[in-house]
């Protein structure tokens, strides 16, 4: 046998650290112990990000082996395979091997006092498997096999292996250079260095206070699975299919599902780290009742009976005094899609409150309205298959950091890009991981994507580069829009000072989109989280449509999907009469009602998420929560919201509850069975809603039997045309447990690409290609114009930016505050309060100018941190905290130098709305005038607590159409802390 090796493709590696998670899980390594680790590298003199997966090189002349003083050696090299391994039973822990390895690839278990190292997963290989890192890698960056065969493959693909043998040790591990190799000191340049906030050694102190929970540091025999159940991850929007491995009743591993024809066993680190959630000692295990002041966090354990009886009693008291609308339900996606769109929705209907909402208005409500207006349904009709999205010639990411937010999908896209020679362009204020893989990065000013879209469209239409046949046949109102942007003069020259992107670049971009022969235009939170959310999304959709990139394979507009269109409904006769409309769509629009009782009082809140770290403008949100008569918090972990609750109810998650995965970009509904009991007295959200319903007289609808989510699914959740065929039987008939919607019957075939020419949209009359009233994509109609006019706006996307910016741009103001209820939104399905708005031209006394005069000289962008984190959940996973422990602030080297801030130092970030501290990450890949602070950290988290970035955000800056909050462009100032 020739030498076995890993081949690591640096062009495909996205630094997601899934390999680290897989390795630690496979070998049950605790904090501080490594067999593989991903190093992030950046430079202060040039925008760029590189990643290096560092693992044993399995050298021909292993320095570690020769350094071992034990006889016979505690390290051996297999003469047949070349694999170098540690014999831990012979190792005395002297550390000589660690010192000797010039690659820094020899690990050490400081708890058990012995060397640890990669042995290419000898146990897995013995059973015919491949190393865990290679199996999991979402980027297809790690391959395993015979070294010569791997090198042959690289040669065939025209890839160049990196020279990695300066010390004549004969390393076996192959690294494929990036297509554009990073500079090194050999080029006379300072080499790239890891940022101080990535893998900081001092992070270990917080993690080593307690031993990690099972199965980490447990013997292999205690963690060897004896059965496997397919299911999915409930954490993020990649919606990975996974396999849950059990030994007896105990969960011992979470891995990718190689039976999945789309994801093929690739999985992100978060899914694997849910193992740490299921076994976490931080989990809430008993119902708690507040005994201290709100916010103090003092509780006494009570029985479920007592908690539920008292909650029901207090809810009734609130209803009697203030009416049913005085109860608000904040039901985020933590609670699970079935609980959110099933149990809680039914409860709200039976109780009679319109004030139920999730996180949509913070994330994606703008894009949902835009999709409904343009396409008639929410979400892309395309799929992550080689024939569909894989067939594109250009991938354009605008405000979408897919590599860190849906790493497995990005792995597919990046792999197709490399195999098919497609191009990739990223438009983002930051050089994100996604942008680091792109052929071109356009660092746009935050909040000006609409200007870019309008200018690109102008150029395309002006030069006749649009797909004329598609426009004529399938787009309604496109000429009107064309005339509008011509009349407005939205040229590339107009957009240049607004976006910060040269007009020539905009033209080039426009021509690339038009001529690509298949462009997938990805957009996400960077576009959504603005006060121009709906109109920017529409402008980008128009751009995709006029170039024919809609309703085809290999061409699409994909804005990360939110919830699938599932909605349980109580029988009409059982729904309580709702006398008053929803105060606002955005929960931050409820704050006035909670604080002041206007337009009507909200006095009680049942929260299934962490609003007090998550709602924009946390100071106001906390004040509002203090004012409530009753706060019930259903959660997995004690967090910032728990501290303000009257009752904290311990919840279950994922396989403890039974659920579907969150929505995916590609319409997959992934089913997750209930497989295990939650810890202690924790209960699934379903159980809690059914029990509460019992005490309020709703058990004829929220039946006892519906505690079983599978039954609830079949009997209640899928009672509509799109989901009727996605039954438990059909979901369980496939080993990967997913079915794409729509599927109107159990035998209806899945549709890979919706809205193809010649097809009828599902559920529509014959010939209607798109589910709009006209059957075409709709840019402008009289009905739309009337709806926009009701809000004081036009359906034709007129450019405006944000209220707070370094450039004076037009911005939107809502003419009424949240305390008024004089207008209902024409864009919401349920009666919902809204406010008229107007676009204000820039003026010298604009709010931004006043803030700039006070020294607010930078544009704050908030967003998702790297792949191992997702909101606050992962901050309770020790390994995610080992990877990314601290809240950070990305800041440009020039700005950092001016402030005297060094990489890793504490900085204070201040906006007009609040202040927080974070550690500086000096990053040349960010606009010099921008800073970036990620979401998810909170001051009550167990390992590395930091104040949430939402102390800096403003609850009042909202899109008048979708109620979406601006979270991406706020003026701030940064100082050394």
């Amino acid at each position, binding site marked *: 046998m020739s030498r076995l090796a890993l081949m690591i493709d640096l062009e495909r590696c996205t630094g997601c650290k899934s390999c680290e998670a897989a390795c630690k899980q496979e070998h049950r390594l605790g904090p*501080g*112990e*490594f067999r593989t*680790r991903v*190093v992030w*590298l950046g430079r202060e003199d040039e925008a760029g990000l590189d990643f*290096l997966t*560092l693992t044993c090189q399995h050298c*021909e*002349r*292993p*320095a570690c*082996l*020769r*350094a*071992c003083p*034990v*006889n*016979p*050696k505690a390290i051996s*090299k297999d003469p047949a395979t070349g694999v170098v391994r540690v014999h*831990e*039973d*012979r*190792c*005395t*822990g002297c*550390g*000589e091997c*660690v*010192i*000797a*390895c*010039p*690659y*820094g*690839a*020899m*690990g*050490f*278990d*400081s708890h*058990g*006092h012995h060397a640890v190292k990669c042995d290419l997963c000898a146990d897995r290989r013995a059973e015919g498997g491949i190393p865990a890192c290679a199996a999991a890698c979402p980027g297809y960056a790690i391959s395993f096999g015979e070294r010569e065969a791997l090198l042959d493959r690289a040669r065939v693909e025209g890839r160049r292996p*990196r*020279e*990695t043998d*300066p*010390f*004549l040790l004969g390393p076996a591990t192959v*690294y494929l250079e990036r297509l554009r190799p990073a500079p*090194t000191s*050999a080029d006379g340049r300072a*080499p*790239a260095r890891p940022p101080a906030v990535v*893998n900081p*050694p001092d992070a*270990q102190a917080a993690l*080593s206070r307690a031993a990690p929970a099972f199965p980490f540091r447990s013997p*292999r025999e205690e963690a060897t699975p004896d059965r496997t159940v397919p299911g999915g991850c409930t954490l993020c929007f990649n919606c990975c299919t996974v396999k849950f491995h059990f030994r007896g009743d105990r969960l011992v591993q979470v891995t990718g599902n190689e039976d999945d024809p789309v994801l093929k066993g690739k999985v992100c680190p978060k899914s694997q780290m849910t193992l740490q959630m299921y076994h976490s000692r931080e989990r809430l295990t008993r119902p708690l009742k507040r005994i201290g002041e709100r916010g103090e966090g003092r509780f006494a354990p009570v029985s479920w009976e007592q908690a539920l009886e008292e909650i029901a009693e207090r809810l009734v008291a609130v209803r009697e005094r203030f009416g049913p609308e005085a109860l608000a339900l904040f039901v985020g996606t933590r609670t699970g899609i079935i609980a959110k769109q099933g149990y809680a929705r039914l409860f709200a209907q039976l109780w009679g409150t319109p004030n139920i909402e999730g996180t949509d208005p913070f994330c994606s409500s703008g894009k949902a309205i835009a999709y409904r207006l343009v396409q008639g349904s929410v979400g892309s009709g395309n799929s992550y298959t080689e024939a569909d999205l894989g067939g594109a010639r250009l991938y354009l990411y605008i405000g979408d950091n897919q590599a860190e937010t849906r790493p497995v999908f990005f792995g597919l896209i990046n792999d197709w890009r490399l195999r098919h020679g497609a191009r990739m362009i990223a438009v983002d204020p930051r050089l994100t991981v996604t942008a680091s893989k792109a052929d071109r990065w356009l660092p746009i000013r935050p909040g000006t994507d609409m200007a870019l879209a309008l200018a690109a469209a102008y150029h395309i239409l002006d030069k006749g580069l649009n797909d004329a046949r598609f426009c004529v046949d399938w787009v309604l109102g496109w000429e009107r829009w064309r005339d509008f942007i011509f009349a407005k003069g939205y040229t590339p020259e107009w957009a240049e000072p607004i976006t910060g992107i040269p007009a020539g670049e905009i033209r080039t971009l426009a021509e690339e989109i038009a001529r690509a022969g298949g462009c997938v235009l990805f957009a996400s939170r960077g576009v959504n989280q603005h006060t121009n959310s709906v109109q920017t999304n529409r402008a980008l959709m128009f751009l995709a449509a006029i170039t024919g990139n809609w309703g085809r394979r290999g061409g699409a507009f994909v804005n990360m999907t939110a919830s699938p269109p599932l909605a349980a409904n109580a029988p009409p006769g059982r729904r309580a009469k709702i006398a008053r409309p929803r105060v606002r769509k955005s929960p931050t629009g409820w704050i006035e009602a909670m604080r002041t009782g206007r337009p009507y009082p909200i006095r009680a809140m049942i929260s299934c998420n962490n609003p007090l770290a998550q709602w924009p403008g946390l100071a106001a949100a906390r004040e509002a929560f203090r004012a409530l008569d009753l706060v019930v918090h259903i959660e997995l972990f004690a967090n910032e919201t728990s501290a303000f609750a009257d009752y904290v109810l311990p919840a279950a998650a994922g396989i403890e509850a039974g659920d579907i995965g969150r929505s995916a970009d590609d319409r997959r509904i992934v089913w997750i069975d209930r497989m295990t009991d939650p810890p202690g007295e924790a209960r699934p959200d379903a159980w809690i809603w059914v029990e509460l319903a019992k005490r309020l007289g709703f058990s004829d609808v929220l039946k006892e039997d519906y505690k079983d989510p599978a039954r609830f699914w079949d009997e209640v959740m899928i009672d509509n045309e799109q989901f009727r065929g996605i039954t438990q039987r059909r979901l369980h008939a496939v080993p990967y447990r997913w079915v794409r919607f729509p599927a109107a019957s159990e035998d209806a075939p899945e549709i890979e690409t919706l809205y193809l020419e010649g097809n009828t949209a599902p559920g529509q009359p014959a010939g209607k290609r798109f589910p709009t009233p006209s059957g075409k994509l709709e840019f402008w109609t009289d009905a739309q114009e009337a709806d926009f006019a009701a809000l004081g706006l036009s359906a034709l996307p007129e450019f405006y930016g944000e209220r707070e910016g370094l450039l004076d741009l037009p911005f939107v103001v809502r003419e009424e505050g949240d305390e008024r209820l004089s207008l209902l939104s024409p864009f919401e399905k349920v009666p919902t309060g809204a406010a008229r708005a107007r676009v204000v031209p820039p003026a010298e006394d604009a709010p931004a100018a006043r803030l700039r005069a006070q020294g607010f000289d930078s544009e704050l962008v908030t967003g998702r941190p790297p792949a191992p984190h997702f909101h606050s959940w992962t901050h309770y996973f020790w390994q995610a905290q080992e990877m990314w422990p601290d809240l950070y602030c990305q800041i440009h080297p020039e700005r950092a130098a001016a402030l005297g801030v060094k990489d890793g130092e504490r900085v204070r970030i201040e906006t007009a709305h609040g202040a927080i501290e974070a550690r500086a990450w000096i990053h040349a890949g960010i606009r010099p005038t921008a800073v970036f602070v990620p979401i998810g950290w909170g001051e009550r988290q167990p390992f590395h607590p930091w104040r949430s970035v939402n102390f800096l955000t403003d609850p009042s800056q909202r899109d008048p159409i979708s109620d979406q909050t601006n979270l991406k462009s706020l003026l701030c100032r940064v100082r050394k802390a």
Partner: protein
Amino acid sequence: MNRIDLSDRVLLRLVAAAVLVLTVYFALLPALPQAFRLPGSAPLHIAGVIGSSLLLVSVAFVAAKRSGRGGPPPAWFVAHAVCAVAGFALVAAHSAGRLRHAPALLLLALVALAALGVWARVRLSRRLAATFATRRALLDPPAPQARGSLAALIAEKEALLRRLDPGAREATFSPTLGHWLRAPALAYRYARLARAEAGVIGTRQAAGLALGYWRAVHIALAWLFVAGLVVHIVTVTFFAGYVAGGGEVYWWHLAAW
């Protein structure tokens, strides 16, 4: 994997217990019978002998580890640590608190050895673990000139190895105790070449003073202690008169020169 290990907690408790016992012992010393205040008295003499013997378990550990005989090296390591702590306590008791005499240097060496060993095991091992993925070889390879010197050193090692151990491969070879006993000069020359190679690679220097050299200092101190112990035994056994300095030779001895 059945591997014996001495956890940090047990090690620290062991050391704390030894320190506590010694503290109590020295606090009570003035009140104890005179036999416990004279290092050469029968009970303290026996304590010294047993303590030294326990300390020499560390030598056995080295022999076992490097010879491949005597059982699993981790078990020997545990024996080394436990016996060293116990031996240290007994030797300290044997001193009877007489710290102004020459043999107190041995006690000083023991304190340094123990402190260094415990610090390395408990604290430095975390720093050692933290070195994973911090080296620059893959990130920024050194200048190619190093390859020339390394090639020459490897060739020299290969030539030497043909004489030292003809069946061995340079790629995986380092001298064992057997080589040192059978052909000490060749083993020494080989070890020097290996050190030179490591010097060119530079990992030990890069690891920093503490990580790179604590073990060398620990070993050096241990050999110093062993040498001092031999000198002490020889002098008190054969040069008792000299040691007594004209006073009474009250301890067991063979000659009072």
